[in-house]
């Protein structure tokens, strides 16, 4: 009896997960009560010190805490303590806004660069220089000039997601097959119409690939940016729990960040499939 590849892969995946969780559980077991302490002293100390509990939480601790968070994801206990749902929503909103501005700027600009060799050559040095700058390096400058930490975070998202989109758009537009453009020319199609009816559909898969890369980077950066500026957001949540040395909550946040990142990527991947065409 042979199982399908899919099923076999799933079995291996689950086995790997189980092995990982088991190893994790074993590695973080406590070492039992440590040195002798007077009860009065022990009362003032934490579990790590008194019961030899590992400083690293085990999978069961994380699971229990995760359940606690999932039960009430939208609570609001004031400006510094909000549910995970609210924190994630804020981060997604920031990423969405910065990303949208980047789309609005990058795609038309990419079209221009792709269609005009002159602009392409003229802008090239600037793009090459600005592209490799770490988005977080912009943060102090943004804070200083914009004077608002929330807008600064959005600016950083914008600046980090604009380059892959810009370059991919330019590349996609520039490499549209000459035959198609020539056909359009013979049929006397105007420049604007040519851009929308011939070049855009032809370049769409490349453009969307750029957008997919960008959303991944944007999601990576928002966490770091929010850790820097604070306020609300999943990055801030990580920082706040790190501040309390609550590794359990940090692990939960990491899990959720991964999950949301995956979802965002999948959405863009679906869009890419929608515009891909067979040649």
């Amino acid at each position, binding site marked *: 009896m042979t199982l399908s590849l899919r099923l076999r892969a799933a079995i291996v995946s689950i086995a790997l997960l189980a092995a990982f969780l088991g190893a994790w559980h074993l590695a973080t077991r406590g070492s039992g009560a440590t040195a002798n302490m007077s009860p009065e002293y022990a009362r003032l100390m934490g579990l790590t*010190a008194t019961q030899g509990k590992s400083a690293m939480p085990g999978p069961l601790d994380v699971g229990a805490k995760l359940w606690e968070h999932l039960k009430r994801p939208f609570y609001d206990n004031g400006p510094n303590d909000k549910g995970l749902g609210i924190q994630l929503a804020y981060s997604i909103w920031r990423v969405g806004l910065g990303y949208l501005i980047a789309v609005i700027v990058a795609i038309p600009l990419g079209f221009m660069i792709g269609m005009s060799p002159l602009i392409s050559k003229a802008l090239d040095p600037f793009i090459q220089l600005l592209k490799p700058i770490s988005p977080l390096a912009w943060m102090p400058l943004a804070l200083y000039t914009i004077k608002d930490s929330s807008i600064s975070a959005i600016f950083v998202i914008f600046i980090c997601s604009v380059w892959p989109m810009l370059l991919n758009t330019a590349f996609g537009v520039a490499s549209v097959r000459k035959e198609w453009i020539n056909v359009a020319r013979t049929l006397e199609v105007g420049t604007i119409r040519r851009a929308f009816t011939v070049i855009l559909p032809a370049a769409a898969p490349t453009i969307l690939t750029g957008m997919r890369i960008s959303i991944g980077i944007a999601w990576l950066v928002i966490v770091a940016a929010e850790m820097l*500026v*604070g306020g609300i957001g999943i990055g801030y949540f990580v920082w706040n729990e790190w*501040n309390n*040395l609550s590794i359990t909550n940090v692990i939960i946040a990491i899990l959720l960040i991964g999950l949301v990142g995956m979802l965002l990527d999948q959405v863009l991947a679906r869009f890419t499939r929608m515009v891909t065409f067979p040649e």
Partner: protein
Amino acid sequence: MSTSDDPFDADRALVRSGCACGRHRSTAEHAHAARTLRCEPVADLSEQKRYEGIVASAVMRAVFPQDVARRAFLKSVGAATALAALSQFFPLKTATEAYADAGPPEKRDLKVGFIPITCATPIIMAAPLGFYARQGLNVEVVKTAGWAVIRDKTINKEYDAAHMLAPMPIAISLGLGANAIPFTVPAIENINGQGITLAIKHKDRRDPKDWKGMKFAIPFDYSMHNYLLRYYLAEHGLDPDTDVQLRSVPPPEMVANLRADNIDGFLAPDNICQRAIYDGVGFLHILSKEIWDGHPCCSFAASREFIATAPNSFAALTRAIVDATGFAAKAENRKQIAEAIAPANYINAPVTVLEQVLTGTYADGLGGVKTDPKRVDFDPFPWQSFAVWMLTQMKRWGQIKGDVDYKAVAEQVYLATDTKKVMAEMGLAPPTSSYKSFSVMGKTFDPAKPDDYLASFKIRKSS
């Protein structure tokens, strides 16, 4: 005598001495009083009554500057008669109303930034315990990721006022590590409350002379922690610039770094010291009060621009902070405060840790339980001599180059005069002078001769 004490109690001394809460003559009397519930938190009183007490206390103090005379008078006529007699000469009711009805704040919704450490206790607790609300303010206290961020957000006016390390407003005003923007300190947040924590493995290396080559963490360059640690090391013959490594590390990462063996110790704000002990990675070498008893640590800071544009809001905010600081100064309130500021919305730390810091009964990390009710204390008065001392240390370690007009800077930034006015309005007794002498590790500091003081140090950065 504390401001909200009953001034018509013949048994009570005007000077703080004797017992832990400072309201009784001896520990025995305090214990007795605690049983009969005389140490009720002031918050239980109605606002009107509380202010009445504060005003009456100021009047009593004015009429009877001598403690002995006041007591004798009260003993002979009784409190009720005394109150009636006083009211004849001085309209207590009107004075109380005048105090409670200061001008309406220009801006009611304010944002105040803080760093989650126990130094910020008055700023934080004023929100859950209603000290801001009592002044007619709606204050949102916002937790902030680090000192540089709190500086930038306050300069950007995202915050109307903020919790800052005591030297920070001086540094900002002088343009050190930032654009020069006039900042002010209307109130000191806390005194004492820091400590030198070392990794457990150094438990037998308690003599600082053996610390050559060790790595220490401090929270920020412009911090009392930096100056105190440097002072302490230098007094023991170590040059902090060459013999050890000092790193600026955000407080929570200090504990993690200590666990990971990246640093050997730190001079850090509490609850971080106690947290390292609680997690079993460090022990308390000394409390900062053993270096300088009564040293300032953090301050409540606002820009001059905020004072100019919203003077009444600023005054109300200062009153709230001074009021909260007074409440926090009382030992019997500390447990309640620890519980109020522990949740994730505020400091986000285990209650046990905060309680140990605030009550001063703490585990030292080596198996002993120690008690020091003055481990952290709260006193709002921004002594200008504190600022002068910080300036001498900034110069000593090369943060300020060239000459500095100590007095002018101190008076620009540390608003002792305004604080005195606010304290007097509140019926508190502000000190008459804004300068006081104090001693750091046995060495007396004379605020009138900062240059001589500076010249007397052998170990300093050559400039």
